[in-house]
């Protein structure tokens, strides 16, 4: 983890309101793991004041160029400003931060993505492909337009669900997961789940995993101030029995955590 000055290589709107930001990073930025994130200072001004956390969608090293990619949605003040940064603009970044997905899964990884939560899972799928590890990728989105990155998913089996049925299965990605589990011949000893998406989806996926005794890692989101474990502003409530009266900090013990012990109902 370091404070590094980066410059914007490109910042493109991929689908309405969703952008792909490529940042040229210096040597001080160590090679990130899938699931890790960066803390971006979006403005030198006081409004908005705090940095914004973003998962990495990917990391490329080509010759001298080292670049980190972020896939983000415009939801409020900070992300709107971020979307206005032009190539060449300077951004000050802290990262890579946090704990990513288990780097060497021992079982077959089933990746479950919801909407823009696909970003860290794309990064994970590329790293699995590089190591020639098979995986299953289940991707749920509202419609065809939100299926960012599907064409890039190689080396694994892909199934898609859309709410409007414009592509693939019409319905929730959770249904895809149930079906995959039923028909794929998986057991908790042979497969595990890696997921990222809206908290409602993560809640459902982790309930399914817990009921079936499946290992499940989820990448969480929530408000952060320091992102380095100093302020204790980003606690994750755990289920009774798992918490021992303690809240892990999402920024240093996460953002990827064992989803089956997170008390999703108490999470913001």
């Amino acid at each position, binding site marked *: *983890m*370091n*404070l590094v000055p980066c410059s914007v290589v490109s910042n493109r709107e991929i689908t309405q309101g969703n952008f792909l930001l490529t940042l040229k990073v210096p040597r001080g930025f160590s090679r990130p793991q899938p699931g890790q994130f960066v803390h971006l*200072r979006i403005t030198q001004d*006081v*409004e*908005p*004041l*705090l*940095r914004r956390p973003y998962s990495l969608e990917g990391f490329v090293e080509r010759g001298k160029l080292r670049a980190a990619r972020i896939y983000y949605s415009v939801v409020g003040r900070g992300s709107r400003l971020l979307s206005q940064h032009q190539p060449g603009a300077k951004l000050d970044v*802290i990262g890579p931060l946090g704990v990513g997905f288990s780097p060497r899964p021992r079982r077959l990884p089933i990746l479950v993505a919801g909407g823009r939560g696909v970003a860290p899972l794309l990064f994970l799928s590329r790293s699995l492909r590089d190591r020639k590890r098979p995986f299953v990728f289940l991707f749920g989105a509202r419609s065809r337009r939100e299926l960012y990155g599907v064409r890039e998913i190689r080396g694994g089996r892909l199934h898609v669900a859309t709410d409007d049925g414009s592509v693939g299965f019409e319905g929730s990605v959770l249904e895809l997961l149930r079906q995959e589990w039923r028909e794929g011949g998986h057991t908790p000893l042979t497969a595990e789940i890696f997921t990222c998406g809206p908290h409602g989806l993560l809640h459902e996926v982790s309930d399914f995993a817990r009921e079936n005794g499946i290992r499940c890692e989820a990448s969480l989101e*929530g*408000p*952060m*101030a*320091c992102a*380095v*474990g*100093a*302020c*204790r*502003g*980003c*606690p*994750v*409530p755990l289920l009774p029995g798992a918490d021992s*009266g*303690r*809240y892990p900090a999402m920024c240093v013990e996460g953002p990827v955590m064992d989803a089956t012990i997170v008390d999703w109902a*108490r*999470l*913001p």
Partner: protein
Amino acid sequence: MKRDLSVRIGSLELRNPVLVASGIIGYGREYERLVSLEEIGGIVTKTVTRHARAGNPPPRVCETPAGMLNSIGIENPGLEGFLAVKVPVLRGLPCAVIVSVEGENVPEFCELVEGVDGSGVAHAIEVNISCPNVGPHGMRYSTDAGMAREVMGAIRPLTKLPLIAKLTPNVTRIGEIAEACESCGADAVSLVNTFVGMAVDARTRKPILGTVLGGLSGPAIKPLALAKVWEVVQAVDIPVVGMGGITRPVDAVEFLLLGARAVEVGTALFADPTLAEGCVSEIDRYLEKMGSSSVDDLIGGLEVPEGRGVIRAGCAPRTVRGGRAS
């Protein structure tokens, strides 16, 4: 000309007047790679309580215009955990260590002060009698001069370390509370802690913070903090440590001009981890421009037209040491 930035707060010698506030930097190591501790005066640790605290239910932080609300609830490992786990971490830090403590009652404050004194790691103790986020006892000791006197008086005989009473701004007459602390042997007062605040989500019709109320900090509170520090500087003779909304390096100079002997950098460090070092450089640059060799010439150097800016009616401001009569 080499400029001397060192300041004294009681028997505490700081190489320069810039500290990082409690609750911002943990116990120093969390920000180790981002903040150059050897360049700043020191750090104030996260407040330690008698018993371990898990802290408040989430969400605990929420951004507001030019500021933030927090309701961390003093999450900390308790005195025993602090002594076992955090003291070894603090031991090697290349700057002054001020340990912040808070008790639920006077005996707890006493135990904490004795424990911290015995640890050998603290250069001073900041007595947090001002946290808005820990239930009914939190601010009680610094919203009532009698209670502030009770707690400061009880702990004074227990340690030779400098005691800095940290005050809440959520009172009408902060000068009186500061005087009460001074009269009971506090070596200094520090202020401000956060202002009680609230945020509402109109869409969900719910309060945003898990505890409904929280503490407001950041650039939005700087003018309020400056006014409170100004009031206290007029009320007491002991050193005042100023904070609240320091965001640009020059903000630190402003607090010193008012008469603060040192400053603490808070929330804005989250955005800019180099801020505390920036404040040190800015103070140095300012002295250079003034043609001065010592930070004492800057402290209390505010030029106020005579008779103006007196906060307590009928009470002449005391002379600010190191300052200029105007």
